[in-house]
């Protein structure tokens, strides 16, 4: 969480690990809020895709997560703090096609090793900190300026 004094909007959500039925709900909610605020469509889509991928990561790999969504005059931030197994090798995890997903998860259409690279592609800044056995924090920042 940040203490940015310029925060104009802050919403909190939570995600349950393994809850595939509701996966994507946070991303969809954030997307509709951004539409109502009137941000340009391409920017909304980038935030939505990055958030969705991060949300799926929580559902597939973690036990649970708190999500904080913030809007300031200059940036849109989505912070996911999860409790779970964590990521042992971050550099490896950022490589396209790398995945520790089980066959079962892959059969469901997830775990293709594109999640983190896809978040990085859509975010202007991506910060990941992780501790094995404790959890991972993902900070996605998209610049709101024109």
């Amino acid at each position, binding site marked *: 969480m940040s203490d940015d004094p310029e925060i104009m909007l802050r919403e909190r959500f939570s995600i349950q690990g393994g809850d595939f039925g509701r996966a*994507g709900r946070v991303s969809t909610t954030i997307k509709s809020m951004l539409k*109502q605020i*009137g941000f340009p*469509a391409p920017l909304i889509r980038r935030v*939505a895709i990055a958030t969705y991928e991060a949300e799926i990561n929580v559902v597939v790999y973690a036990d649970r997560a708190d999500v904080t969504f913030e*809007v300031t005059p200059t940036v849109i931030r989505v912070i996911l703090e999860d409790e779970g197994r964590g990521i042992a090798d971050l550099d490896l995890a950022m490589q396209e096609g790398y995945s520790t997903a089980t066959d079962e998860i892959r059969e469901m259409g997830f775990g293709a090793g594109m999640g983190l690279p896809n978040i990085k592609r859509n975010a202007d800044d991506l910060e990941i900190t992780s501790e094995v056995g404790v959890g991972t924090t993902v900070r996605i920042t998209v610049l709101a300026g024109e």
Partner: protein
Amino acid sequence: MVAEGYYHAHEVCLEKCDGRMRCLRACPTGAIRVRDGKARIISELCVDCGDCITACPHSAVVPLADRLDERSPDYVCRIAIPSPVLYSQFPSDTPPRRIREGLKQIGFDHVFDVSRACDWAVLATRIFLREHTGKWPMISSFCPAVVRLIQVKYPELTEHILAMEVPREVTAREAKMKLSKELGIAPEKIEAVYVTACPAKVVSIRQPAEKQKSWLDRAVAISEIYGPLRNAMAHPENGGTAELFEDATYGPGWSRLGGMTSVLGREKWIAVSGTNDVTKILDDIENSRLRDVEFIEASTCLGGCIGGPLTVENIYVARSRTIRLGEKHGGNIERYAGQVESLYRSGFFEMENPLAPRPLSPLDPDIGKAIAKVRKRDEIYESLPKIDCAACGSPSCMALAEDIVKGDADRSQCVVLRAGR
């Protein structure tokens, strides 16, 4: 804020409306409010799906399709282009030809069938998908309500709509060209009437999504002409016979969900119907999910066009008949392959203009003020019972909170809060 200038093919008859709110609960885009006991439609949000027409117990939501007896002196020739749905509205041993003859008995000079244009569209879609290098998946454009839904609520997905002229427009254009040559009259003197299963087609004719003018001139509801047509068909001795475009093959199959994709010859497709389910699929595309899907056949009417609000027959009966009609009268579409290949290269299927997004207005034109309104709305929402009873006249507690922020409603409208006081 209500956007001006959007045409809709249905309106609320205030005399008949007694504010029972069925339409309010049925509307998938939350476009209806009931204020002072009367329903009203928010133009900007309405995508013309017609669910409110079906939901109203008093028929107070009136489709504004054209009437059969209206004739303009500007035309010297009137042709019918029936939706394939029409064929499913009669007992299954009724041959399509008999129905087309019936249309001539009730005042059409010629009848043109969309079947061939449907076959062509399948083949043209095949070529398009084979050569497509842009974004996936592509979404069918034949349901005008799906096109509007995307333009309005998913503006960023507009480029996923397969921008190809739809069979009813191709048929109208071809029919006018052919007749004008054969009869020696100007195409403008020919009136093309679409016999439609849904009000969205009426809108697509009066206010096309991507061009100045539709090739069709008006639309009459299947439910409006059904009676006269049946009566006429009972007296075949008055019938005409000459047929055009009679070599149609695939025909009626197009009108049910999955009909088009079943002959598309691609593996990675989805066929989806019903506005709520279409919305879920569009959310998935927007989240960049569905990466291994190439083509989506979508219609807002459950089960496809045979579920349209302007039909008369039970959709399950119509579906069964459609399948049997396809087996009986269907044929091999491949024989058009060579012809469609050259038509496609000549630009025959291209839309006149690209489809443009039509995004909703934000809560406020100023981003800072819009954010303040979102916060205010969330604050109000927290104070509401969150049971979405809709008794206030807004479709959900969230919608009421938003209406209050917009100055269009008051917290005192919440009956649950009033009762608790």
